């Protein structure tokens, strides 16, 4: 089943806030082998001008995927999750994600294309603090392979 093209341009309401914690940043940094002390040592992070420890560049995917889930699990979207493959991911950081941030995401479905039985969906998550400060724009493209 092809993904419902009628979702193109749809924007979802803001997600509930994601609380960025020091220990989650440390855990993620260790998992991707990011050794910069700015992820684990608040004093070192402050010495570089940050408010607290900051997250590695791809940490934002944790929050972006929370945004994407709203669309992916929507039965009317027609997405078979078991056939979904991540095709591309991009992040534009307006400033580093920092421990203590409360981040909400607004998801927009930028495009839905179908070709050769496969569907390609591009979504954009605008992440900002609950105070409205822009933090990151995350763009994701997934491919949903067609059934046999």
């Amino acid at each position, binding site marked *: 089943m092809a993904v419902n093209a009628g979702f193109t341009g749809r924007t979802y309401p803001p997600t509930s806030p994601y609380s960025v914690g020091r220990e989650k940043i440390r855990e993620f940094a260790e998992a991707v082998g990011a050794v910069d002390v700015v992820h684990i040592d608040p004093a070192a992070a402050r010495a570089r001008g940050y408010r607290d420890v900051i997250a590695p560049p791809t940490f934002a995917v944790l929050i972006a995927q929370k945004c994407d889930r709203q669309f992916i699990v929507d039965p009317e979207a027609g997405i078979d999750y078991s056939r979904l493959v991540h095709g*591309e991911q*991009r992040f534009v950081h307006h400033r*580093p994600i920092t421990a203590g941030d409360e981040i909400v995401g607004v998801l927009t479905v930028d495009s839905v294309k179908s070709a050769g039985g496969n569907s390609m969906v591009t979504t954009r998550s605008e992440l900002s603090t609950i105070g409205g400060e822009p933090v990151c724009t995350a763009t994701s493209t997934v491919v949903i392979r067609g059934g046999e």
Partner: protein
Amino acid sequence: MSKSEQPSNSVLSVTDVEVGQQLPARTIHIERASLVQYTGASLDRNRLHWDERFARSVGLPDVIAHGMFTMGTAVNVVSDWVGDTGRVVEYGARFTKPVVVPYEGGADVEATGVVTAVDAQTRRATVELKVTCGSDKVLGRAVAVVVLD
């Protein structure tokens, strides 16, 4: 700001960077344990990344690394080079080929990068990453933008 609070000056200066400059290459060794650790940290619990039987049942040769794991580890080449991870302001990649991670021996991913643009006005440099596993290019259009001192 007192002197002790000055940001550290280990960040590359725009005058240190030129187009064509190669970033130090590194080998990223990936084991099953690396994928389990990333599964926990990222909350991406897709069975393709840790369940061999499941991966084979959908036609893969073995479990594969999360594309985001490969992307997340490869960018360390850029952040370590620039001297502060917070200076990586843009980063993106296409997942062109899966990294297959066998139980025995794991997999080795080679990551390096080259500077493709420097803008002295904005102090921004663009780095194109080359990320391979064996003869496969596993990330495509892998580009990071950094802000230099």
